[in-house]
């Protein structure tokens, strides 16, 4: 065996064995013109040439056509000879014509008089690493292209390790201002003092993901309502080595939600008015369709007014309700019963003929429900009840 220089001495043979054992790198000797003088398995593995195919041929066979035209080999050999070393990275060509991304180091060899006698060439295939690097860059660019979200990396203790354009847009800080700082700098003072950041990181580790909404601070001190997701990054041993944090500004949505809620409350308030028509007599005109939310609100509002006004009689006027179904009827009866438990008498009014038919056909138990056809009749009954109460209080005096 033996590629190149046949063992003159044992020492040389050891060196050859050493070089033969290197498989991840190509380590070969060139003469002063750049002609290949030695070969080894690592080189064969990289470029696919056998020793007898390559020894005696110039280094330029590994170069791409463009590089050959540009005289790259001569340039690199000259640089190595002049500076004592030439390191390059670039495309090289295998025997089968395929390319690989190589890092190449050329070092001159000189004899005892300092005369250049050749070069040592060390090369390595970095195609894979280059692809990984490009992929990582692509991810970085991708994250940077997301401007509506903040996508950043934190280390395992919550210190900021990467920043993105979305983050810059959201929080106004530049990369230099935040890298290495703890994420709690984005929290409100109270949250930061309460150690909220650490609790959120712990929750993310425990559950594999943590999502929350809350106030966060911008550089200028203004607040925004953020939706934040924290996901732990783990290494091969499942050890948590950091976190990915995705955040976005929900202030606008929150404001809209609150506005809608406020308006809904107002509409409910307007749609279930309780009117005091007489001392201790309340009228609740029910208008429009009763859904469960409105119905619950109606009952609540009415009972509160009963407690507040100490109302003895409540008139539920349903002449403005277009249709009575089982749910609505049941709900009205529940309201009547709840009012009774509080000590108040209810009178149903405005029951139309078709409503009366519907309620009975629905098979709803009326109990001892008082009902009148018109609000006028209901009011008369109410006054009678209240008036009787007054009379009753006078009675002992008269007696």
């Amino acid at each position, binding site marked *: 065996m033996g590629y190149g220089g046949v063992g003159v001495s044992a020492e040389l043979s050891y060196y050859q064995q050493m070089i033969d054992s290197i498989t991840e790198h190509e380590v070969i000797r060139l003469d002063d013109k750049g002609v290949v003088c030695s070969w080894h398995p690592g080189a064969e593995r990289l470029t696919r040439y056998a020793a007898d195919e390559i020894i005696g041929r110039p280094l330029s066979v590994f170069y791409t056509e463009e590089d050959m035209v540009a005289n790259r080999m001569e340039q690199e050999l000259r640089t190595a000879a002049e500076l004592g070393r030439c390191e390059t990275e670039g495309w090289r060509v295998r025997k089968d014509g395929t390319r690989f991304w190589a890092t190449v180091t050329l070092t001159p060899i000189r004899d005892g008089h300092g005369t250049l006698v050749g070069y040592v060439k060390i090369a390595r295939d970095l195609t894979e690493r280059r692809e990984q690097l490009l992929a990582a860059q692509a991810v970085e660019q991708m994250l940077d292209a997301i401007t509506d979200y903040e996508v950043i990396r934190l280390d395992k203790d919550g210190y900021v390790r990467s920043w993105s354009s979305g983050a810059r847009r959201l929080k106004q800080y530049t990369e230099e201002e935040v890298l290495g700082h703890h994420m709690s700098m984005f929290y409100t003072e109270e949250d930061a003092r309460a150690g909220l950041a650490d609790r959120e990181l712990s929750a993310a580790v425990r559950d594999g993901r943590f999502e929350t909404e809350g106030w966060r601070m911008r550089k200028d001190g203004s607040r925004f309502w953020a939706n934040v997701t924290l996901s732990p990054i783990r290494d091969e041993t499942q050890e948590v080595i950091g976190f990915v944090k995705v955040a976005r500004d929900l202030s606008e949505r929150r404001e809209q939600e609150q506005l809608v809620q406020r308006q809904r409350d107002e509409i409910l308030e307007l749609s279930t008015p309780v009117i005091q028509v007489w001392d201790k007599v309340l009228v609740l005109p029910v208008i429009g369709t009763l859904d469960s939310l409105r119905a619950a609100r109606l009952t609540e509002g009415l*009972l509160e007014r*009963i407690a507040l006004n*100490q109302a003895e009689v409540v008139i539920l006027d349903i002449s403005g309700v277009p249709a009575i179904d089982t749910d609505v009827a049941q709900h009205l009866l*529940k309201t009547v019963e*709840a009012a009774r*438990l509080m*000590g108040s008498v209810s009178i149903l009014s405005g029951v139309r003929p078709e409503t009366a038919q519907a309620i009975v056909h629905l098979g709803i138990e009326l109990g001892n429900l008082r009902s009148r056809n018109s609000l006028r009749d209901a009011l008369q009954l109410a006054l009678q009840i209240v008036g009787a109460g007054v009379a*009753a209080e006078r009675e002992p005096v008269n007696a």
Partner: protein
Amino acid sequence: MPDDVPIIRMGQNLLVTLQGNLEDTTVEQIERAVTREVARTRATGVLVDVNGLSMVDSFVARVIARLVAMVRLLGAQATIVGLQPAVAITLVELGVPMAHVRTALNAEQGMARLRGSHDELVD
């Protein structure tokens, strides 16, 4: 609630005030005290003021209904007063049978109703 269940006598009527949290033992004490007092004073009406109860669930509701039944068996009329709106809703939603329990807004109105002068209109 300790042994001294607050029961106030007002003429022919008794006013029982329930307060705080009702537990099995206190419920027994209340039932014993109320029934004994109704029998001893030959009261014709009992007002049960529940305004001070911190929580009314189905258990407490049944206790109230039971107390009312005992008073009726002793020949007196019972009226519940001071039920809070939230409590009233809860009782109705729970479906606790309270149909035969008389109620009033406050002790004053309860007294007036116990005097029974406008029963025909109210019940």
